[in-house]
């Protein structure tokens, strides 16, 4: 008797999955994931011969599965319950911050970029144009106290130091931002800084040029 009910429940689950897939229209774009979703693949005989169709169809089924967003949420909740402290490269930080993880520095890329900046700066210097560079640390560096315990976190300041050594004129806003880390200078659910964070960087930039920034009170908040 029990096995009969279980058999029926299982078949109903399969049928529900198929039924919902058939009824629900395919979506083109996912607002939550900010990407276009896989459409039913157009396959050639070659694709099938090489065995490429399997992955294509699996991807299609996964992207167009009914209630996809809900399933993804269920997975994230399960991850958090099971003790995971990050999801897809984003830390679950304290005070309900979601902070993008930067566990190691892309040293090769950073070196190449800094070398390119140096070339530009040298070229501009020939025409008597001065160039100053502001490398803005991300939330994971400034708000590192909020990260989970032992969370791997790259020392972003070392890149600024390296750039300075290469002879670039750097405007270091690390300290200016760190002083205000208890204010809302980075968004909680987005990797950008807030206007307030940008203001402190602007103020530091002007001060480093020996000028006085407009005080915060002269700006209107909308």
């Amino acid at each position, binding site marked *: *008797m*029990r096995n009969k*009910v279980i058999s029926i429940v*299982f078949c109903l*689950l399969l049928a529900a999955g198929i039924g919902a897939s058939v009824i629900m229209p395919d979506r083109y774009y996912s607002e939550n994931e900010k990407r276009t979703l896989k459409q039913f693949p157009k396959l050639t005989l070659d694709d099938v011969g090489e065995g490429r169709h399997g992955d294509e169809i699996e991807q299609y089924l*996964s992207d167009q599965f009914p209630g996809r967003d809900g399933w*993804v949420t269920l997975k994230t909740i399960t991850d958090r319950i099971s003790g995971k402290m990050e999801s897809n490269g984003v830390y679950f930080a304290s005070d309900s911050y979601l902070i993008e993880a930067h566990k190691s520095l892309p040293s090769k890329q950073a070196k190449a970029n800094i070398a390119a900046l140096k070339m530009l700066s040298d070229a501009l210097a020939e025409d008597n144009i001065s160039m100053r560079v502001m490398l803005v640390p991300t939330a994971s560096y400034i708000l590192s106290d909020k990260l989970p315990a*032992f969370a791997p976190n790259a020392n972003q300041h070392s890149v600024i130091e390296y750039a300075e050594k290469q002879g670039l004129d750097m405007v270091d806003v690390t300290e200016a931002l760190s002083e205000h880390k208890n204010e809302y200078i980075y968004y909680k659910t987005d990797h950008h800084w807030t206007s307030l964070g940008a203001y402190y960087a602007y103020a530091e930039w002007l001060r480093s040029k020996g000028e006085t920034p407009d005080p915060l009170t002269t700006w209107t908040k909308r």
Partner: protein
Amino acid sequence: MVFSSLTFLFVFLPAVLLVYFAVPRQGKNAVLFLFSLLFYAWGEPIYVLLMIFSTVLDYTCGRLVEKFRGTPKQKIGLLISVIVNIGLLCFFKYSDFLITTVNGVFGWNIPTLNLPLPIGISFYTFQTMSYTIDVYRGEAKVQRNIISFGAYVSLFPQLIAEPIVRYRDIAEQLDSRAHSFDNFGTGVKRFVTGLGKKVLLANNIGLLWDSVSKTDAARLTTLGAWLGIIAFAFQIYFDFSGYSDMAIGLGKMFGFDFNENFNYPYISKSVTEFWRRWHISLGTWFRDYVYIPLGGNRRGLAIQIRNIAVVWLLTGFWHGASWNFVLWGAFYGVMLVCEKLFLLKWLEKAPAFVGHIYTMLTVLLGWVLFAFDDLGQGFEYLKVMFGGGAGLVSSGAMYQLLSYLPLILVCVIASTPLAKLLYGKLTATAHEGTLLTADIVKLTGICALSVAFLISGSYNPFLYFRF
């Protein structure tokens, strides 16, 4: 196609169930055969021909053995089957290994073939060989219906992975088997348990191993290395036993009874016991078709030790065409001989926990050999495990420990028969309604979570690609 995919769960499985239960009894094997070919061809369109070839070959060999029974010619069918099956396996799996070895020894430069390994070839060649051997020995009746035989060889529940089903074990079921809600429901429960083991446990703990194994040996700490290999041990166990559960469950849904393949191996108190509980169908195969024909343990200790050596070198080599697998097999051969000679006697006198710790340590060291194709890397890893790395602990390793501790604890509990015992107790005392609720909650819970993890594009590797 793999079981742990949306394509299997929501397209293939419903289709095969629908057609299978719609056709009359005489047509059911044909349905299984056709769908199984489709299942195989889904990932390996070309190599399905190889499997059909293997089917026709062993079908013919079986008939030949039968036809010439009692005459000297009866060996012909047997020889063809063994030579061709082992030949196929060697050609597809070991030719590059052989070429590289020969090149290395003689300094030659023969180009490697770089053939993709036909999925499951190690499994189905062993199965078809076992059929002809069993017919030759008179332990199985010859199968005259090529569709039924094809259904046996290609049977999709156990086609591309475990367990290795011997023909004689399901010979009768091929021709007549019972379909009932009882079988179907039991099969569903087993299948879903396996799905959960694979998708929820193996894949997730596999992420930990994945990140540890990608760390430079120079940056790896002792804690990190132990965490990594423990994660690997759980990944491989829940992946393999989960796959076996899914196969056994699917078989049951179609009325077949496959033998058990894993029996809580990590609770063993000796390596001998471990191998009675781990991958049972492979051990049985080597026992029946290699160890016993060589004389087993009945021809003196020296011969027995030789036989153990042969079986374990082959077992190692069967797992992959690379030296680390040979060493892994040899390592177990040596451990088993040591246990036979003296260790088991000592272990019996010692308290149980000594046996548990000794066995798990041996198994974990074995997994290090198993996990790294490059022996140099494997030894480097062992060195880190015993203190020769970048210190004992790092904050990175602590982070991994904290992130995975709950999952590791779940894996530990799921490796023991605890849940089974509790369920048994519940069955003995609870009402039918309570039991049904428990079953349905478990079924829908595991299904929902598995679907969520499959959809979210989590890590879902196929570990059998090399077998």
